[in-house]
């Protein structure tokens, strides 16, 4: 693409080959060749499945028989489907409570890990380690941690006089249990926050300190605004990941049936999977996928718009 830039002062499309010299054309071809693997991958593995799933969403899909076109029927049925709304509300719970909590915990961990203390890098490794444990393995591990009889969490709670809940079989506690699990594997977010914290200019912090600002004031008035673009990034990626919440829920309720207990862990993607791959209602599942796509798109755009108020970009 360098050729494009070199030929004109601004981007021109379609490129006007006749005006280009030999070298520029060669550059363009080379650029296109380098782009080709990604382009083919995108067309075959992303765009094509997206377009076909959009078509399926307006039909009843049969894998070995022709599609039955039903127009908006799948979408209309979804709006009347109680489980659709329940799965959406379960997912919104994770998005609305789990994501902010995880962000808060990651930020606090990052602030602590940014303190100049001896063994700092060891602490950083310890906090990052859980995030490289495969999700399935960490979920199974947490099934033991949350075990009401022999789990370490309830043992700790008991030692301070709290009667721990039935994390796995009480619908009021299953989602908080999953959020705890999510917080444990938040190393990636911590690392991103850490990099942001290291970019906070020490001159500002020192100036504030000289002016008499205490630790909390420096954190609230300097550090948090300075890392706000990082917060926005973590928030958007966190929200997108939470809307697609699947693996942990699948493993968590796997022994008892998806959604256990009382469909409290029936998240949007789990219900989508159930419809598409268990009930063989691929058209219905495709409609769900498109609704999810639109929900995520709207949320992301809203966050970007609202973020202008709380995000500070130096310079």
């Amino acid at each position, binding site marked *: 693409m360098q050729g494009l830039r070199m030929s004109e002062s601004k981007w021109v499309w379609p490129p006007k080959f006749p005006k280009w010299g030999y070298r520029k054309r060669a550059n363009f071809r080379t650029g296109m060749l380098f782009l080709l693997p990604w382009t083919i991958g995108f067309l075959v593995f992303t765009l094509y499945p997206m377009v076909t799933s959009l078509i399926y969403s307006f039909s009843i899909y049969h894998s070995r028989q022709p599609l039955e076109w039903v127009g908006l029927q799948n979408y209309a049925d979804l709006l009347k489907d109680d489980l659709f709304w329940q799965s959406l509300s379960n997912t919104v719970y994770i998005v609305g409570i789990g994501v902010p909590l995880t962000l808060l915990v990651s930020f606090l961990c990052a602030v602590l890990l940014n303190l100049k203390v001896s063994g700092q890098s060891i602490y950083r490794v310890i906090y990052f380690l859980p995030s490289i444990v495969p999700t399935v393995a960490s979920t199974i591990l947490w099934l033991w941690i949350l075990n009401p009889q022999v789990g370490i969490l309830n043992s700790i709670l008991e030692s301070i006089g709290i009667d721990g809940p039935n994390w796995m079989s009480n619908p009021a506690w299953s989602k908080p249990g999953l959020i705890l699990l999510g917080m444990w594997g938040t190393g990636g977010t911590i690392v991103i926050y850490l990099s942001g914290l290291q970019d906070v200019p020490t001159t500002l912090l020192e100036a504030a300190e000289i002016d008499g600002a205490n630790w909390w004031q420096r954190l609230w008035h300097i550090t948090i605004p300075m890392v706000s673009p990082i917060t926005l990034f973590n928030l958007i990626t966190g929200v997108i990941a939470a809307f697609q919440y699947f693996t942990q829920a699948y493993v968590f309720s796997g022994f008892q*049936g998806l959604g256990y207990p009382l469909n409290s862990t029936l998240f949007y993607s789990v219900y989508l999977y159930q419809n598409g791959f268990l009930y063989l209602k691929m058209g219905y599942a495709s409609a769900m996928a498109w609704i999810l796509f639109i929900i995520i798109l709207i949320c992301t755009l809203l966050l970007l718009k609202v973020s202008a108020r709380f995000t500070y970009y130096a310079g």
Partner: protein
Amino acid sequence: MKNKLFKIFALFAMASMLLAACGGQVAATQAPEAKVLRVWIQWGDNPQQIQTLFDKYTAETGIKVEVTAPVEDDKILPAMTGSEPPDVLVLSGGDLVKSYYREGLVDDLSGAIQSGGIDLTDFFDAPLQQCKQGDKILCLPWGTDMYALFWNKDMFEAAGLDPNTPPKTMEELAEFADKLTVRGADGNLEQIGFLPDQGWDHSELYVRMFGGFWYSDDGTQLTANSQPMIDSLTWQQQFYTNYNADDVMALSSGWGDAYMSADYPFYTGKMAMYVDGEWMTGPNFISAFKPEASYGVAPFPPPADHPERANTAVVQGTVAVIPAGAKDKDASAKLLAWMMSPEIVAEEFCFNANLPTSKKAAEDPCFTENEKFKVFMDLMASPNAKHIITTPISLEFNDAYGLVFEQVVHTGADPKPLLDELQAEFAPKLEEALK
């Protein structure tokens, strides 16, 4: 320089395409490879043993058979819809077979039964029934399962009960359960007398004991809110609500996935009675994990006012299908016929301690020499042995029923209105699916 690079790149690309094309021609002119049949089995505690079994087919026919066992659930549907499905697929249960048939993913086996010379009269009736849809046979049972009551004799003795006498009625079972349920000094439950859904939901057995099922016998009507359904849920509910459902669940959910370990609550004195299948009496479960366990097995008892329902049990289990996309249907049919032969059924299911589906195979002494296993063999021959009824909406309905089950049994809800809702939602779905 860049131009040169581009030319070299293009040359490589052309050369590799040419080589690939030549490769194809070479392969095409070579002799066709020896036939390999692929068998996928959804379960598989011992994959090596299953492969060794199918190696016998290779020895007899020269046709190689590759067994994949266990196959992960998620791989089955893509394979069935793709261009390379297995030649024979063995599913853990018949729940999905009718949905698969509706989607055109599996064949009606009538042709394969004829061409493979499979003798349908050699099958026990109950397991074969689950494969029938009208006059079509969509699968063939290959070994099957039944459920009965297991009781821990040591716990019976400790509770002052005769360790050799299981409850005779469902009402007596509840009384025994009460005596066998123990709370510790702190008020927490320490052991449970009977857990109706230990492992998984056994409603099909209890509903049959109350004289019905959630489908009509021909599978064309939904009877989700019938009296036997209400009675079954109400009966199961008492084992939770009588002891504070939260307490029962705190204890039982702590058992985790101990099924295949010495920590299973039935061995560790945490649960005195429960319902389980015939395989537990074989070499791979109780004898392996807790050989010293003192336990008994008996047919699940009937309600006191219906003694004629004694020896009622529900047959459900492994079925074999031929995927519609299988390349060589004739070869699949022959392999299927070999799998169904009495000798192979006897060998496979003696080893795994599952019930044989072939009457001739059932004559093998290995099925009757273990007294506890014989309880299940007798149940299979009982006139009250029923088959599990499946429909094209089985899986979806089962999940929805599962929710009602949880609401009623685990949280004490009234079953009637919930079952009415279930009936209203799924009766039209069944009607639609059967069109």
